[in-house]
């Protein structure tokens, strides 16, 4: 009989439902078809004017009802879509009955709302005094959800009937991985047989784009848009701001087996390590990222030589890709040159808070389908980064285990190890 616990005696955590939304479309089928065809979702920005901006492209999700309405509205809609797909695939109708972990961007009252409030205000007041007076005069909760960090997840908890106080997490670009880790840990603690982990980010506003641009983080290679995100290439010049979401239904193997659910993969190990070097740059020796990878492997109870494929953080910034190569080559040694390492961000851009969840979802599909999505736009390899990046064209190959990396501003490093089969 199959063991229901791992080598540490903890419940094995599996995935029984996956949902994805990116600029490539809604749903995992549409996304998988595009990702394995090497198709890019990066396109010119139309949501707001791009006058005065050096970056005029993004991977925004422009085709939903709340696209462009507000960051929290779009984040909510994408989270709900992904959540419905995942719970639907898992065959969990009605109340979900487990905790909810959402990775989401910090919310702020958007400019449209601020303009509207200001216009309502009194002409004899200026600045925030006028906003505050106008806010007081607006009845009810017209703008409230755009200022309350706990509002989106509250509505999702209603929608899915999750249990208890839902958690919204932000570990910058590692948030999606953190949400999954929180779910895994809750199941391992025996608090629940299942957890719903969602990463969603619909915060690609003009202000967000400008903030990242002021930190020189974004690509300015606007033409053609689909060529801008080029992880591991010599001429990479920054990431492409993007939106999306993914949801995973996490379950103990025991509970999933008992109800006859299809097991889509195993969430084998999670590792993290914070960097104390700088707010946006990694410690030059890569030690925190290295420690995060090693922590994930240790948590999975696996050795370096048991990883078949790396789903890279691969943002296409000069700094990240260099440091990620350094960390991977330190952990895996010479063997890293023969491990496929690809970046989904070459096609969907950097979905920030959602990235870790989307890339975990794609990693699980990679194992299930035996097809590795490529790193596209790999026309000018960076000779300092000697990796098999699965250049430009997908690769059919059996993959039994994946390491997925997520690194973010603020010294956030989180890694997930997934396997195809429970051991």
């Amino acid at each position, binding site marked *: 009989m199959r063991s229901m616990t791992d080598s540490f005696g903890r419940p094995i955590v599996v995935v029984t439902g996956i949902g994805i939304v990116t600029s490539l479309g809604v749903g995992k089928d549409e996304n998988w078809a595009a990702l394995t065809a090497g198709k890019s979702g990066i396109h010119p920005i139309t949501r707001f004017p791009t006058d005065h901006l050096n970056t005029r492209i993004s991977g925004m999700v422009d085709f939903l009802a709340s696209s462009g309405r507000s960051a929290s509205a779009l984040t909510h809609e994408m989270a709900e879509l992904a959540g419905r797909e995942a719970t639907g695939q898992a065959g969990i109708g009605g109340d979900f009955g487990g905790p909810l972990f959402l990775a989401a961007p910090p919310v702020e009252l958007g400019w449209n709302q601020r303009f509207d409030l200001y216009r309502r205000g009194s002409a004899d007041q200026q600045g925030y005094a006028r906003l505050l007076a106008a806010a007081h005069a607006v009845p009810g909760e017209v703008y409230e959800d755009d200022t309350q*960090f706990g509002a989106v997840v509250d509505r999702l908890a209603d929608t899915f009937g999750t249990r208890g106080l839902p958690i919204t997490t932000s570990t910058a670009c590692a948030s999606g991985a953190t949400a999954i880790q929180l779910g895994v840990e809750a199941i391992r603690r025996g608090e629940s047989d299942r957890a719903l982990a969602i990463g969603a980010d619909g915060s690609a506003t003009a202000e967000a784009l400008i903030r990242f641009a002021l930190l020189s983080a974004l690509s300015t290679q606007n033409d053609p848009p689909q060529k801008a995100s080029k992880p591991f290439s010599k001429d990479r010049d920054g990431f492409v701001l993007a939106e999306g979401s993914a949801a995973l239904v996490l379950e103990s193997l025991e509970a999933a087996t008992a109800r006859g659910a299809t097991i889509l993969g195993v969430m084998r190990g999670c590792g993290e390590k914070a960097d104390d070097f700088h707010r946006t740059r990694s410690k030059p020796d890569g030690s925190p990222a290295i420690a995060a990878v090693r922590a994930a492997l240790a948590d999975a109870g696996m050795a370096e030589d048991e990883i078949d494929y790396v789903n890279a953080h691969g943002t296409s910034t000069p700094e990240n890709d260099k440091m990620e190569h350094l960390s991977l080559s330190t952990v895996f040694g010479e063997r890293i040159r023969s491990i496929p390492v690809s970046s989904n961000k070459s096609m969907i851009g950097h979905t920030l808070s959602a990235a870790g969840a989307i890339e975990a979802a794609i990693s699980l599909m990679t194992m299930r389908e035996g097809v590795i999505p490529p790193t596209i736009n790999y026309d000018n390899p960076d000779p300092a980064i000697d990796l098999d990046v699965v250049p430009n064209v997908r690769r059919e190959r059996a993959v039994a285990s994946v390491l997925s990396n997520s690194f973010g501003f603020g010294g956030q490093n989180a890694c997930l190890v997934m396997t195809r089969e429970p051991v």
Partner: protein
Amino acid sequence: MRAATSHDPRMNQHDAIITGIGIVSSLGEGPEAHLSALTAPQPRPVLDTERFVPYTVHPLPEIDWGSQIAKRGDLRQMEAWQRLGTYAAGLALDDAGLKGDEALSATMDMIVAAGGGERDVAVDGDILEASLQRNDRGVLINEKLTTELRPTLFLAQLSNLLAGNISIVHKVTGSSRTFMGEEGAGVSAIETAVARIHAGQSSHLLVGAAFNTEHPDHLLGYEVGGALHRDAWAPVWSRGGMHGGGVVTGSGAAFLVIESRAHATGRGRAGYAAVGKVASGRARRGSEDLAMAIGAMIDALGGSALPVMSGASGAHSATAAEKTSLDGRGLQSVRGFSTLTGHLKEAQFPFAVALAAIAVRHGATLAPFDPAFDAPVQVQDGVLVTTVGSRRYEGAAVVSAA
């Protein structure tokens, strides 16, 4: 109501012991200052009724930032919220005897409950004023923000960068997680920290939050929901029927070092108190009776005979529901500390736990400061801690002798 409770308190190696406290509020900084404020014959709030008229706030005390954030370069990268949190985290580490302990800092886990940092008031004001004269507001935003925003301000605003700054300044790097979501984030941070200790998933953690209310955008977040009190100042339980929504905010922070009993005793630390059960909930306030939900949470904790350190916000319906629930259980030894500190948003629950731990350690007699609960409270070996979110989410815990 669905309350989730963590493990039962057991006198064992996985008990969650508070071994360090870093707190700052208008009452001062550190456990001593707060203990003396709470046990003074007539505890008095510190109020600023002028700077944000018509709102009253409880302002930060004078702080010597450099005593916890040594590098001026680090200070320059932060605005008030991050400074306050990083400062309080440093106080907690100092208090736990862990400051500068490289090995234990490098393996220390961290959970921060965070909102966001401060926006640039001048830039926002410029754009808003110009918006009255222009129709091309999208272009206006680009024009102004690309030229007037200080590039590094973004990092002072990002929610997870309070944790990031704590890593940089205090070298806490075992892990770094930030939870968002007002009072509920503070509840979840403590609940998750305690659950991880109880389950052996962590041996020592830094957990907490900070809130800087002395910025108009941070008041705006409350006022779009009509939450702020707009009348003469009154104690937290006595604002029903007055103008505004009942919430008076304060600037403050609370960080705790929580260790497993094994870890704490291994390095010879007795600690302040143990955090036993933590309960949290998400009552559907539109359709459920919040007072019953709060009551169920208190009952689940077995907190019915204990003194209460209440994080009541003053928000009318939530505070009335909590009062009903406490009254219904005969709980009359209650301290609604927001009367003295103001509402500390994400920091509310960690602050409540910190006050409870200080009171338990000292067996304090807490003086009355509120006509709703006007008898002195003698704390012995346990305190029930509550935080009912002004808008959503509830939490409670029992803090008992270590």
